[in-house]
């Protein structure tokens, strides 16, 4: 017992103060992408096309008739950073901002038009955070009433590579300490308020995922964690997967990343359920 106490003393207090205090991730971390406005840059069509083509997962596209803009779909994107390298950071740049998440699939699309005004602000500051907070306004009050003090989630891996699963597990470690927000990952779907689904939904997991979903009592939430769960990720073209949770279940919250940083998942869940 003495040894345990001594060790406890040596270990000290390790829990982060997030969200009360900001955490700045290293610049090399590939978080929220930022796109440059095409006309401002005077980009040639050719270099833009090249950048679009450099994406192995077709996450980049041109949009807008009279005022062309570049779109990046954070749902399809696996955050490999290839487009950033291809354009030398000119067209696409990955910031170290981990605050990502959306309650609708199309809100995951970042456009060069919309990111122009936030370009001025340095990443990670409050402007950026507030913008993101918009995504929850509508449902927030209702969800807050139900879940803000106690939220139980059941995790189902449906073809996930274990990176998303591992970084969900990490939320239970003392640094993130999920339990301090009243959130628990529970063992049975019957005790859960929702599912945290990872993986592109392999055909072999389809039935088990459906059964888990039906075992959750209503009202129930489905959270798609990671590129695979959102749109199939690197495996989207395989015949052995459905290509994302949406192919099977209604999804309430999308958390992008390959895998999402634990802070991204934490941020998105806290915001969506009004726990902050």
């Amino acid at each position, binding site marked *: 017992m003495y040894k345990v106490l001594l060790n406890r003393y040596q270990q000290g207090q390790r829990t982060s103060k997030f969200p009360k205090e900001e955490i700045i991730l290293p610049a090399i971390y590939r978080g929220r992408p930022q796109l440059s406005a095409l006309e401002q840059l005077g980009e040639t069509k050719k270099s833009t096309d090249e950048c679009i083509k*450099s994406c192995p997962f077709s996450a980049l596209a041109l949009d807008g008739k009279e005022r062309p803009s570049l779109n990046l779909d954070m749902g399809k994107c696996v955050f490999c950073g290839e487009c950033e*390298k291809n354009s030398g950071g000119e067209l696409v740049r990955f910031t170290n901002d981990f605050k990502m998440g959306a309650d609708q699939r199309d809100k995951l699309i970042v456009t060069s038009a919309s990111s122009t005004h936030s370009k001025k602000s340095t990443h990670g500051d409050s402007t950026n955070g507030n913008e993101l907070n918009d995504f929850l306004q509508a449902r927030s009050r209702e969800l807050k009433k139900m879940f803000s003090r106690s939220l139980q989630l059941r995790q189902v891996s449906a073809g996930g590579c*274990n*990176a998303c699963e591992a970084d969900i597990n990490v939320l239970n470690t*003392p640094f993130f300490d999920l339990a301090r927000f009243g959130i628990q990952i529970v063992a049975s779907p019957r005790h859960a308020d929702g599912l945290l689904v990872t993986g592109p939904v392999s055909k072999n997991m389809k039935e088990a995922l459906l059964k*888990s979903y039906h075992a959750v009592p209503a009202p129930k939430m489905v959270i798609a964690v990671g590129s695979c769960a959102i749109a199939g*990720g690197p495996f989207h073209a395989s015949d052995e997967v459905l290509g994302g949770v949406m192919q099977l279940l209604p999804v309430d919250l999308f958390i992008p990343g*390959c895998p999402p940083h634990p802070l991204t998942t934490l941020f998105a869940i806290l915001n969506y359920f009004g726990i902050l």
Partner: protein
Amino acid sequence: MNEGLLPIIPGEAIPLSKIPHLHFYDFYNEVLAQMEDGAKVVQYFAFNDPVVDRKQLLLVLRKAGMGNRLLLALAYATNEYLAFSVHHKKFHLFERELYETEGIRPIGHPSLHPVRKQIELYPFYCIHGHEVHEVGVGPVHAGVIEPGHFRFSAVGERVHLLEIQLGYQHRGVEQLLLKSATSAWPMIIEGIAGDSAVSNALCWVQAMEALANISVSRELKIVRTLAVELERLSNHVGDLGALSNDVAFLPAAAYFGRMRGEFLNLLLLLSGNRFGKGLLVPGALRFELSSESADLIRAKIDEITPEIKSVGKLLFTTPSVQSRFERIGVLQVEQAQELGVVGITARASGIDYDVRVDYPRESYSELNLPIRTQKGGDVWGRAMVRFEEILDSLGAIKTLLGMLGRIESSFLQPSHSNAFANAFAPSSVIVTLNEGWRGELSHAAVTDGAGKIIRYKIKDPSFHNWNALAQVMRESEISDFPLCNKSFNLSYCGFDL
């Protein structure tokens, strides 16, 4: 002596024409002779040989006393043959896989149950008897882990048989690779198993470098070795935390759990991703390792080493932990030999095999790492091997950073695309072998006359080890299963592909 079997060095491309194409009968006898002589299976799969336009079996064996050489054999495939598994359990899953994917029937194989396909029709073994009951667990488990189904036949608490049904994670990786653009390969390869993203990427880049004749600088090798060791550290430390948790020793679970995150953060410093995704491409690193980052890594290792030692001491000297770790889930050395297990599992049962020492690539020949073994083959042994390897890896990282000296940024590669500029060697075979944190990980590729990859084979160490987990559960208490399972910590997605 090795008539018909070609000694090869892992990581060197071999033209198909240089490999003797054996008739099945000769192949069969030769393989049996090698197996009698103590050979182990590294790879065994089939492909359509572009040179002779026929289906060929490709077998890679390893054997003690051959230096850093493996044995490679090619044989014309038959529709059926007397299963190697009848005499050698090491072939069990390889032959099941061949039957499932190629329809080659190994006659007399004890159980041609599905490996990854049509698992809804899985024919479980059934033990009949008055008191026998079945317990089915999964695919969805209580914890945050991947799916797999475990079917126990038990009498009371005592397990008679455990059958493990996998395949739930099957994403068709090998087929997907063949139809994907090369630019998509890195992310697919790194997605085979996220906890082994760096090791898988390493196996793949070594294969591509050999096929495309790309040379690799010493600095690049050092950084790659560094990344693999960080991956090993994060997983080993995490496993010790999870093992502590499974015996309800929460202080160590919390400390190791947190420290695992520290290593993931160091991988993030190298690659921008906590699992090291996006770091490796053939012949290059995609991100610069700045001297500030190197200093941060060095400082973190210095800070964390005494912490790990002190928590390790706490864990391994606590009597309640000792009594739960010792003599639980015992894999005897004979069983381990017979099944051909690899990695931590093998070393905990006294088998001194470690790819980093036996087939060193990258910077391993400069590191002189010891092989850590234990005798008991129990949970204790598997935990202790991990702990000793953690201390070795911490030292290795310091050595590697020292070797790097002042950091040059000359080995930076601006983009994936440049890495594929060279054409691949036509009609060739390449086999790569590395020690991932779980054990021997191997990739193999075959190219056609135009240098296009026509078969890509991935073998996770778990492919050798899942049957061992099923074996140790026999005559064990069913309640010991979570602890045993965690002490093996095998890959579902790496197996299911």
